[in-house]
């Protein structure tokens, strides 16, 4: 039982660190320029010169995938940060203050949650200009309800814990109670949520870019590459295969990581 749970965790860690390594490498080295076109070599099948083949402009797919990791991780990281920060503000206020503050904030969160996330992001990106920062903000806002609920739940649970009452009885102020006594306990569930949201963010970015509303050309993005590969599905199936595989692997990696951490935490609790 223990080993099975560890497998989930370690597999997640393995996939995620492999991708992180790929991203780190891409900062210093890519085999070809990501936007370097070579019409003579367009739509080449995978081979020794181009491991994942080339696209319709003769650009090296491996290089574009590698640069795409930067986009994917940037979107994942910043949107999760926005979601967690917003969720913390809303969730901690609702959970700690309780009463009508809680009612008001959680109903707002319910309303946001009831709205389909991708639709919300589409509206947001349509109103503002479609670009990377807008995409990040749009995706981050979608995550606020999830984080808010988890954090509120933690606050509700630990606000009434004996050690919190004892700390208050001995003169601890609100700041001490919140940041020293409650937050460390809420943190583990926030990490799990963050990991699961990370994969959702990458998927959402791919979806938005696929729809042409996320990252704009010529910047490399996995979703954008899928979009571009559509017309060449018969002629060059490898064009779609590479970004598809990487999206799948990344989502799988972060989901495994999240599940693994959750299992680890539950076993301890």
């Amino acid at each position, binding site marked *: 039982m223990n080993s099975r749970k560890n497998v989930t965790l370690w597999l997640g860690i393995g996939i995620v660190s492999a991708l992180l390594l790929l991203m780190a490498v891409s900062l210093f080295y890519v085999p070809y320029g990501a936007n370097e076109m070579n019409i003579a070599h367009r739509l080449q099948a995978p081979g020794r010169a181009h491991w994942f083949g080339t696209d319709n402009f003769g650009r090296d797919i491996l290089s574009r995938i590698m640069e795409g990791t930067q986009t994917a991780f940037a979107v994942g990281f910043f949107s999760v940060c926005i979601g967690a920060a917003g969720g913390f503000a809303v969730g901690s206020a609702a959970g700690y203050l*309780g*009463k009508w503050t809680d009612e008001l904030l959680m109903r707002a969160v319910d309303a946001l949650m009831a709205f389909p996330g991708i639709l919300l992001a589409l509206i947001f990106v349509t109103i503002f200009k479609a670009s990377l920062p807008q995409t990040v903000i749009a995706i981050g806002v979608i995550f606020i309800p999830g984080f808010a609920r988890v954090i509120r739940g933690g606050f509700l649970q630990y606000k*009434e*814990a*004996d*050690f*919190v*009452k*004892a*700390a*208050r*009885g*001995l*003169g*601890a*102020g609100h700041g*001490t109670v919140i940041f*020293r*006594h409650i937050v*460390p*306990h809420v943190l583990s569930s926030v990490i799990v949520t963050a990991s699961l949201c990370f994969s959702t963010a990458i998927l959402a970015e791919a979806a938005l870019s696929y729809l042409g509303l996320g990252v704009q050309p010529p910047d490399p993005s996995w979703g954008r590459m899928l979009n571009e590969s559509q017309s060449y599905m018969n002629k060059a199936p490898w064009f779609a295969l590479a970004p598809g595989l990487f999206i799948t692997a990344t989502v799988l990696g972060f989901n495994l990581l999240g599940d693994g951490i959750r299992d680890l935490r539950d076993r301890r609790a």
Partner: protein
Amino acid sequence: MQASNEETDARLPLLEIRDLHVELTAPRRRLPVLEGVRLEVRPGETVGIVGESGCGKSVLSLSLLGLLPPAMRIREGEIRYASETLPHADEESFRRIRGKEIAMIFQDPMSALNPALTIGDQATEMARLHLGLTRREAREHAAALFRKVGLPRPEALLRDYPHRLSGGMLQRVMIAIALSCGPKLLIADEPTTALDVTIQAQILDLLRKIREEEGTAILLVSHDLGVIADMCDRIAVMYAGQIVEEGTVADLFDSPKHPYTIALLNAIPTPAKKHEKLFAIPGTVPALNERGTGCRFHSRCPHADERCLLQAPPVVTVRGVHSARCWLAAEEGGLSNAVG
């Protein structure tokens, strides 16, 4: 004992609770939890509060520090600390005295310490907050207190996490933390209930030692009359949100006036009653919405009559500090032979 009581009586009370009413705000109605509680604690005195579960002992002790749960609030009454009134709603004024003037120790030491922080982090928190000590000074201060409460190897303990210590040790840690700012009043809410009997005796000895050496007044909340009798100068017996009888240990044990006190005393198992069936008070404490207008105890009282059902009994002063909230107490000597 008697002499020292006379002496402390002359001083101003440290804590005065006057006509305290606490209510529970349930949807669409308000239920009284405490009704007209009156109590005084003088410097260096140990006052015990006894009563069965649900009579309001813990609510009373929490209200003194402004720590009532969100659903409860003080409806009226006054809490005065060192002749200064503490406003009910003002969190800040309560926070200033919490820990520094009045400290509280809780029932279950295992859950009263944060499992995620070291003992040192938690033991130094208060001294740094209230006394403005640096990290190192606070650690030395805590180590000295640990030694005082009889904890071995204080420096090593400061680096440990709570799960590594036994319940008795944790309660000592809690007491050391409570003492760290030299409070004048210690509220101990069932401090020994979660501990086993031998440890109980040690913790009570420790509290006694603290009272003698530091002159700290103690408000001891317990359901255990034995513990209370052993420790306290004065006892208040609570029933259904009211203090029904108050007096010195001798007053209550030798000449109890309220039928509830008498029943409680009869329910103590003694070696002499070994072969008899243990006396239990019939019935249960009335629920918050079933208290009625008369005496709260009438449904379980063997002496209750029409008047007890309809009219709330007055608080009758028996002699000196001894008082009882009972119609029969007014009729002198009516119940004093009932114990046996």
